[in-house]
């Protein structure tokens, strides 16, 4: 098991290196002179040149690349051209907010989504199944931006139950978490429903019922456990995506997470921060994937890693 983890980590090093290189080139392919964007439209040519020099943007591309890789090896992601803070510090200060939303909304999505999926599967074709499926389609197709504003109007403006924006209020996480959860929830519900349906038709379920096991036991211990693999995959992928910051949700609810940091950085052509956030995202995805693979072995003891 440990060897397996070590091997996976080693194998991912070239991936991280590849991501680092691609993102380095991609930000530089974006149109727009970063020095001019940083300096503003009113800046004199001297000001723009000074800023270009301060950030080493006047150096040839290969020099910038080598410096970047060298710093990366020492764990230094560089300095934000927007704020002048170390990139690591920028990301670390935003990450807790993003993690908070990601964890809370994933918990909501898993608990509600799996429950709804199982109920829909066991009552296949019923009105309840239909309602759950319809709600799932609603959740998948609802624009986050619109949903967020609706929640704000209903729950923040009309009945003042929750704050409309910001992370300063302890209840501030509720509306963005719900908004963020809805999509994952719908996805998890659909996935659980179809996985359950598949499992419920299998012989071992009929056997379990035939030998007289209570329905509850059959559903939870026999069927759900077997249906969980694809569901875990979906949850893992969704969680990985959420760590990247839910850009729209964070914007609508003025949530100071990584997603907004990334958007602000792209719009100010802050190369080091964009590179840093994307790298962090790549690492997060790799780790979540690894975690999901390890979870497989827990969910299905037949899977062994050695």
């Amino acid at each position: 098991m440990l060897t397996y983890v070590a091997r996976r980590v080693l194998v991912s090093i070239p991936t991280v290196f590849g991501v680092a290189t691609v993102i380095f080139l991609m930000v530089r392919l974006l149109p727009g002179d970063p020095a001019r964007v940083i300096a503003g439209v009113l800046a004199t040519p001297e000001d723009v040149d000074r800023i270009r020099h301060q950030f080493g943007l006047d150096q040839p591309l290969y020099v910038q690349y080598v410096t970047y890789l060298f710093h990366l090896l020492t764990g230094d992601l560089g300095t934000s051209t927007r704020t002048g803070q170390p990139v690591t510090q920028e990301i670390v200060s935003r990450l807790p907010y993003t993690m908070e939303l990601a964890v809370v909304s994933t918990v909501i999505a898993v608990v509600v989504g799996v429950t709804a999926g199982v109920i829909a599967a066991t009552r296949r074709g019923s009105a309840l199944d239909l309602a759950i499926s319809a709600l799932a389609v609603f959740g998948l197709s609802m624009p986050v931006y619109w949903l967020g504003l609706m929640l704000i109007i209903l729950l923040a403006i009309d009945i003042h139950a929750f704050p409309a924006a910001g992370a300063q209020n302890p209840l501030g996480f509720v509306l963005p978490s719900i908004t963020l959860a809805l999509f994952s929830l719908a996805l998890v519900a659909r996935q659980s429903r179809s996985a359950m349906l598949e499992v419920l038709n299998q012989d071992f379920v009929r056997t379990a019922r035939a030998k007289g096991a209570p329905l509850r036991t059959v559903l939870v211990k026999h069927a759900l456990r077997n249906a969980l693999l694809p569901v875990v995959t979906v949850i893992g992928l969704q969680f990985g995506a959420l760590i990247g910051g839910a850009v729209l949700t964070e914007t609508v609810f003025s949530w100071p997470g990584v997603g907004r940091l990334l958007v602000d950085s792209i719009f100010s052509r802050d190369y080091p921060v964009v590179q840093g956030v994307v790298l962090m995202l790549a690492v997060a995805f790799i780790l979540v994937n690894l975690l999901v693979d390890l979870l497989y072995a827990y969910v299905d003891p037949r899977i062994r890693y050695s």
Partner: protein
Amino acid sequence: MAIRKFAFLVVLGLMATACGNGSGNPTSSGPKHGGTLTVAIGIDPDTLDPAAQTTTTASQVVDMMVERLYTLDSNGATQPQLASAMPTTSSDGLTYTIPLRTGVKFSDGTPFNAAAAKAGLDRLLNPATFKTQPGVLSVIDTVTATDDKTLTVKLKSPFAPFVAALTQTNAAILSPASLTVNGNTPAQVKVPVGTGPYVMKDRVNGDHIAMTANKDYWGSQKPNYDTQVIKIVPDDPSREALIRSGGADVIVSPPLSDLPSLSSDSSLKVLKAKSDRTLQIIINTVDTNQPLLQKPEVRQALNYAVNKDEIVKNVMFGNATTLDAPMSKTLFGYCSVGTYAFDPSKAKQMLQAAGASGMTVKLGSPTGRYPQDIKVAQAVASYLHDVGVTVQGPETSDWPTYLGHVNVPPAQAAFDMHFLGWAPAYLDASQQFEQFRPDRIPPKGLETSYYANPTVTDLVTKAAAEVDQQKRKDEYCQASKQVWNDAPWIFLYNQSFPIVYSAKVTSVGAFPNEKFDTRFASPA
């Protein structure tokens, strides 16, 4: 670890709630005071270091904590702030002697004096200062503290709008003692410490900046709220939702389309503050792709073709005034020079006479940079279409990409015409004429019409060094008339800067360069 951070956030949140909105304690006379004022702005300030300021959004926050030698009043006129009077100028226009206020202290208790003022300006001019942007103030040659309350500034060349330029936030005076504490270095300031009515308390990047009242503020007006919190709310509708839900007391730039309903809400007040920003369709005056645009009469025809009043009324929801000069009314050097009244048949005739009927032009516009920007560009395109001009576009992109497309030398011009706003950093016509000077053609500046008229260039060069203020005014007026006639732009409008605030707040003001002023706001 993560859990601990959540706990920390929750505690922080509870503290914020505990601070809560105070009701304000009435006193026998003067404004009420106490409590917290929450202001929502749209951009997370990149830096609070005065020397590196590039946006009014960040500068207006810095202005609450750090002051300059001169400032603007609400009408846009230059007034002494840390200086005690207007300076005396040598006859050659090179030496400015600035008398300073005495008895003023920085919020860290150290005294403000000529040495501190010198250190502030020197720091701005020092290329080692992180992202420093002296801009036009690089005209300063030396700064000398003649005595404790007199500052002498020598310029490299005569520069008439010097005092106006000193009103910019980048010329703010920091406490020299503060440059080595609180994580500050002489090269980079994170916590600005000045003489202002508010003092920095804390900042969570992307979320808020909190300031507390400077109890020992020197001015005759005093800060009334104990705390002011600047909330970062990037989305316009979210800012509106915040003030409607009571989560903010003041917001800037709500969605323009909602201003009528905000105005009719009795719990809210709307202040349509003046702005110095002009919005225009810039025409490539040396266009080789569409050479017809090189003719002034074609460009004039395009001005007659567009119904500016209707655009102001229907696309800007009345939050703008049609231009009657190539600059806003708030600038020194403004004079009304005329109008291109909407006259499509005249436009058609002029186009026909110039052989430009049915010409094709490519139009560009940013999206999300200015209120309603792309919608205004679409309206312009439709008016041009009505007089027989084929408009390709408007092609649009986000601001940095767009800026990259238009900030190019003439040979690389991507558009025949493009939508752009221009807001002088200080209220002097010289800043507006950066748009009409051939020595500012990219990459040296952002004169993207590539317009060059020797008459205008001469007048502007003369005016920049002119000591006689009346003569300067006349020169800018003359130059404005010439520019208006040459029509390097389709002159559109001067936008306003809407601020919405709760009826529970009073004395919310603004400066005519898109800065709000809540320094002396108080509970109503």
